C-alpha cells in the first residue's frame, strides 16, 4: 500500500478523503442490510401482525374476516379470565428456575473447578439431552413418574406417598419436567462465568485466612453473578411460556398460560390468543427489566 502511494502530491492527498468517506458510508449500510432485512422479516413483521391481531374485533371469524377496531378490551377480558393460569405459570417457572439454580450451580462449579480431565465429558453430558427431541424427553418423564413405575412404588413403600397417591399429573410432575428440560440453559452460562474465575483468587482467599465458605461467598459468588443472571433469564423466560410439560405431565388443574394460548388459537379465537401472547411478552419484559436493574449486572451475555 505505502509503496504504491509514494508519489502522491500534497494537493491530491487533501482532495482524496471526501469520495472515499462517502464510499465507506455506503458500505456500512450495505453490510447492515442483511441484518436489517432479518430483523424486518423475523421480528418487526411478526410483531406488527401479532399486535394488530390482538386488537381485532373478537366478534369476527375466519369466514367473515376480522375488522380492525382497536379493541383494547381484548387485553382486559383475557387477563381477567385467565389470570389464574397466568399467575400459575409465573409461579411454576419461578420454582423451576430456583430448582435449576440449586441443581445447576454445584454442577457448573464442579465442571469448572473440580472436573480435571473429565471436564469435556461432563460438558458433553450436559448438552447430550439436546441430541434427542424435547418431546421424547418429556414423554420419558411420563414413564419415570408413572403410577406403576418404581419411583412411585418406592415412595409409597416408605410412606412418602399415600396408598392412592401418584406423581404423574401433579404440579410436582410439571415443575420437575420444566426443571429437567431447562437445566442446561442454567448450567452453561453458569459454567461460562465460573470458568473465567482465576483459581489463584481462591488461593489468595485462603492466604488471607478466609475459610473456603467465605471465599466462595465473597469471591466466587459475586464473580459468577453474570452467569447467574443470564442463566435464570434463559430458564425463566421460556419456562413461563412453556406448554408441553403442563400438557404431557399435568392435569386439568395445572394448565399454564401457554396451554391457554394454544387452545385459543386452536379454537379459532385469534384476537384473544394474540392479546394474551402480547400480555405475556410484556409481563416478561417488565419482570426482566426489574430483575436486571436489581441484580445490577451490566455485562449480560
Amino acid at each position: 500500500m505505502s509503496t504504491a502511494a509514494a508519489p502522491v502530491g500534497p494537493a491530491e492527498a487533501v482532495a482524496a478523503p471526501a469520495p472515499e468517506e462517502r464510499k465507506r458510508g455506503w458500505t456500512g449500510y450495505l453490510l447492515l442490510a442483511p441484518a436489517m432485512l432479518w430483523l424486518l422479516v423475523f421480528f418487526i413483521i411478526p410483531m406488527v401482525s401479532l399486535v394488530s391481531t390482538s386488537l381485532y374485533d373478537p366478534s369476527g371469524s375466519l369466514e367473515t374476516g376480522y375488522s380492525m377496531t382497536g379493541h383494547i378490551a381484548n387485553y382486559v377480558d383475557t387477563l381477567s379470565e385467565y389470570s389464574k393460569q397466568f399467575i400459575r405459570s409465573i409461579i411454576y417457572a419461578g420454582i423451576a428456575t430456583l430448582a435449576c439454580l440449586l441443581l445447576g450451580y454445584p454442577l457448573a462449579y464442579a465442571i469448572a473447578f473440580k472436573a480435571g480431565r473429565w471436564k469435556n465429558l461432563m460438558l458433553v453430558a450436559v448438552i447430550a439431552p439436546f441430541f434427542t427431541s424435547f418431546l421424547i424427553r418429556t414423554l420419558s418423564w411420563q414413564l419415570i413418574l408413572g403410577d406403576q413405575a418404581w419411583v412411585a412404588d418406592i415412595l409409597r413403600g416408605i410412606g412418602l406417598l399415600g396408598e392412592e397417591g401418584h406423581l404423574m399429573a401433579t404440579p410436582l410432575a410439571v415443575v420437575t419436567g420444566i426443571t429437567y428440560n431447562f437445566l442446561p440453559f442454567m448450567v452453561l452460562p453458569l459454567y461460562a462465568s465460573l470458568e473465567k474465575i482465576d483459581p489463584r483468587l481462591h488461593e489468595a482467599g485462603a492466604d488471607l485466612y478466609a475459610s473456603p465458605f467465605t471465599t466462595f461467598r465473597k469471591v466466587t459468588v459475586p464473580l459468577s453473578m453474570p452467569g447467574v443472571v443470564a442463566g435464570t433469564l434463559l430458564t425463566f423466560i421460556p419456562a413461563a411460556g412453556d406448554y408441553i410439560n403442563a400438557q404431557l405431565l399435568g392435569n386439568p388443574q395445572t394448565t399454564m398460560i401457554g396451554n391457554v394460548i394454544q387452545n385459543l388459537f386452536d379454537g379459532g379465537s385469534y384476537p384473544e390468543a394474540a392479546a394474551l401472547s402480547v400480555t405475556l411478552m410484556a409481563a416478561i419484559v417488565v419482570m426482566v427489566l426489574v430483575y436486571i436493574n436489581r441484580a445490577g449486572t451490566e455485562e449480560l451475555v
Partner: protein
Amino acid sequence: MTRRRIHPNGDSAADRLALQIAQTFGAGTGRALSRRTVLRGAGVSALALSSTGWLTACGTEGTVQTKDECKSTDKSDTEKTLNWSNWPLYIDEKGKKYPTLEDFQKQTGIKVTYTTDVNDNNEFFAKVRNQLGACDSTGRDIFVLTDWMAARVISLGWTQELDHANMPNVDANLVESLSNPAWDEGRKHSVPWQSGLTGIAYNAKYTGEVTSFEELLTRPDLKGKISLLSEMGDTMGFMLKLTGADPAKFSEDEWQAALDKMQQVVDSGQVRQFTGNDYTRPLNKGDIVACEAWSGDVIAMQYDNPDIKFVLPEEGTSLWSDNMMVPNKSEHKTNAEKLMNYYYDPEVAARLAAWVNYICPVQGAEEAMASIDESLVGNPLIFPTSEDLATTFAFANVDTKTREEYDKAFNAIIGA
C-alpha cells in the same frame, strides 16, 4: 455464477434462510436456484411480506371461496400423481408399505404420495387455512377430516365438487346412514373414509367393568385415574346426555347446564387428563385405568393387551366419520375420485377394515371379510347392525362462530 441445487434442509444457515424466504415467495423446493435469484426473491418477498404485515394492521378479509372465484384445473389425464394427507395408523401397513394402496398404484398407474400429517382437526385446519383462504394450492389432492371440520371446510367453499360418475362404487356401496349428511347433501364434496364410535375403554387388570359414563365420572375408586377426550363434540355430547339434553339439538340453558356438569366433574379431581389420541399408552400401563376412547384404537390395543376392554356406555355412544375431500386448486381431482372409488370396492374395504378396525362405511365388506379374517365378521365395532347404532348420537352441527364459543367455554373448563 454457478447454478446450484439447494437441498430442502439446506447446507448452511444462510441457505436455509434464503430457502425459507424463497419458499414464502413461492419458489418450489425442488427447483434449482442460483444464489442471485434467491437473493432477488428474498428482496421482493420481504417487500411483499412487509406489505401483508402492514395490511394485517387493518383487519383481514373474509375467506369464503365460491366456485366462480376459485377455479381449479384438472391435469389428471397427463399427471398420474396424487398427494394424500391422512391420519396416522389409518391405512393397512406392512412394514413400510401400504398393500391396498400399492395395488391401486399397480391397477391405475397413479403414483400416490401418502402423508400422515393430519393429527388433529384444528391443527390441520390451521396448517392449510392461509392457502385455502386465499385460493392457493396446498399441494394436497385429498385430505381426511372429521365431520364437523369437514362441514366447516365445505361451508367455506374450500373443496371441489366431486363427480359421482367417476365413483360408481361409492354410489353403490356407501352405507345408507352416511349417504346424506345435513352438511353435505348428496355427498357432493366428501366421501367417508372410516367411521368410529366414542365410548369407554378400561384396563381390566386394574379395575372392574365400567358400564356407563355416570359411573366413569363418579366411581370413587376411579378418582384421578380416568381421562376424557379433548375433542369438544365428543365429551360435551356425553355431558349433554348426562344432563338430559339432546346433543344434536340443545338450548342455551341446556348447554350451560352441561358446562356446569363438566366443571363439577373437573373440580372433583376425578379426571386426570384431557387427551387426544394419546390416551392409549397410559391406559396400557395402568396410569389411566378407564377413559373415554375411540373404538378403533381400542381394538388395535387389544391385539397386544387383552385386558383392554371397550364398552358402549349406557347413555349411548357418539358416532362420527372422517371424510375424504379434494381441496381447491388440487390438479388431480379425477385421480382422487378414482382412489375413492377403489376404496369402495368391498374387497378392498374389507382388507382395510381388517387392519384399521374402525367401522367400515362400505356395504358388502362384511361378506368379503369372511375370506380375510373370519373372526372380525359380525364384530359390532367394525360392522355394527342398525340395532347397535340405534343409541348413537352426534354433536349438533353449528356455524363456526358458535363452535368457537363452545370450544372456548369447554377449553376454559378443561384447562381449569
